[in-house]
């Protein structure tokens, strides 16, 4: 079976600077991947390259065996940007109904997606009146509504209370178990432990790639902050 993601020697330049350098990795379908690294390390640019909205300088990006950005992939890839990209002047349901129609998803998918992100009681509220975290969840629901095979989520848990974060990570794990592939970025190292596989990113490159347990064992660390520091100080560790 084709891997969900295959990236080889990806390089991206923005504003005269190389922001993603020689990145290569392959992700099989049905994996929950954490893309972890500090702010400004190139996570968003890497994700934009995955969904095909970023002009890349070199390398190969394939999703399910097709070059990223292919028209065929638009039904199968869901992308949630860091800033909520929904219509603030429409209600939650109105937003989701529109995106569901664009994606060709059934009406029932709208209610399910609203429930998945725990916004049932705000279904008829205008999005602009919701809090930042709630707006981010509307944006997430918009991607869920199309039941994509690959979900690319840029910092979906920022600013959420711990209970909600736990629920969302449980939702992500459930989606992966059902066969979807998810790549979730975060600058919070602790979120690494919720993933099956983590890609540690720093300064445009991949610092480490493996399971959370293997990473801790390899660096002899007890938490991911420690592991991250150990890897920076001694990349061969």
């Amino acid at each position, binding site marked *: 079976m084709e891997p969900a993601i295959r990236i080889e020697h990806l390089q991206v330049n923005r504003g005269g600077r190389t922001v993603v350098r020689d990145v290569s990795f392959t992700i099989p379908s049905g994996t929950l991947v954490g893309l972890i690294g500090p702010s400004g390390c190139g996570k968003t640019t890497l994700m934009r390259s995955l969904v095909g909205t970023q002009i890349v300088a070199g390398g190969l990006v394939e999703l399910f065996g097709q070059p990223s950005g292919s028209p065929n992939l638009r039904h199968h890839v869901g*992308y949630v940007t860091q800033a909520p990209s929904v219509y603030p002047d429409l209600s939650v349901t109105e937003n989701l109904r529109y995106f569901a129609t*664009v994606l060709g998803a059934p009406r029932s998918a709208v209610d399910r997606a609203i429930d998945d992100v725990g916004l049932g009681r705000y279904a008829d509220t205008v999005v602009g009146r919701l809090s930042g975290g709630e707006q981010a969840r509307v944006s997430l629901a918009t991607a869920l509504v199309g039941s994509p095979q690959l979900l690319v989520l840029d910092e979906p848990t920022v600013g959420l209370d711990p209970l909600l974060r736990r629920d969302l990570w449980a939702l992500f794990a459930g989606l992966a178990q059902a066969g979807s592939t998810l790549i979730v970025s975060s600058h919070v190292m602790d979120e690494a432990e919720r993933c099956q596989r983590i890609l540690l990113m720093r300064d445009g490159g991949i610092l480490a790639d493996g399971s959370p347990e293997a990473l801790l064992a390899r660096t002899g660390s007890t938490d991911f902050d420690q592991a991250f520091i150990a890897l920076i100080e001694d990349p061969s560790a």
Partner: protein
Amino acid sequence: MTLRRTGATTGRVLRQLRHDPRTVAMLLAVPAVLMGLLAWILHGRDGEFNRFGPPLLGIFPLIVMFLVTSVATLRERTNGTLERLLTMPLAKAEFVMGYALAFGFAAVIQAVVVSGLSFGLFGLHVSGSAWLLVLVAVLDAVLGAALGLSLSALASTEFQAVQFMPAFILPQLLLCGIVIPRSQLPTVLHWLSDILPMSYAVGATQQLGVSTTVTSEFLVDIGVVAVFVAAALLLGTATLRRRTR
């Protein structure tokens, strides 16, 4: 292009308008109030309102729709929804046509309101068909919307978008034949006015003001406006980018 996704986009844009009743009220009231003001200014001056009324009946909705559309599409670019839509199975033409139909629908209502008041309350009288003038007012409003859609691609901030009005619309207003007839313009400016859409948008209304029959100039004028609408929509489609730096 599918009707379903185009229609959904139109419905979504109209729903956004519905959540903003003040904008809708201004969309309908502003051109009507301006026409009333014009009628008042020219009150008692024999035939002047009938001379300036028809062109401005086309120009006011054109300007209002231009501004509203350019801001609406710019907002779609800056809040990230356009980028998101372009990662989805939405054709660029579906996006542009969705907007054009939504604002075209708003333009119809706007033109009907302002024409109805102009003829019924402000005492506007034209030699040609009043219904044709309503039709031209709609066409001019749609032209404004189409120009706003395509030009908003050039703006990256609201400050820039708002300044497109004085930059692109006001010169056309000076050259379109209401200050002095286009035939009396200096030669170079006459040529320039020949390639500007508002010359034709206003020309059609002037024809209806003075001629009792449908003249060939009138047909040429509305034909050219229709071509400008189509060209602006095509340009608006072509300037959407799925991939950016």
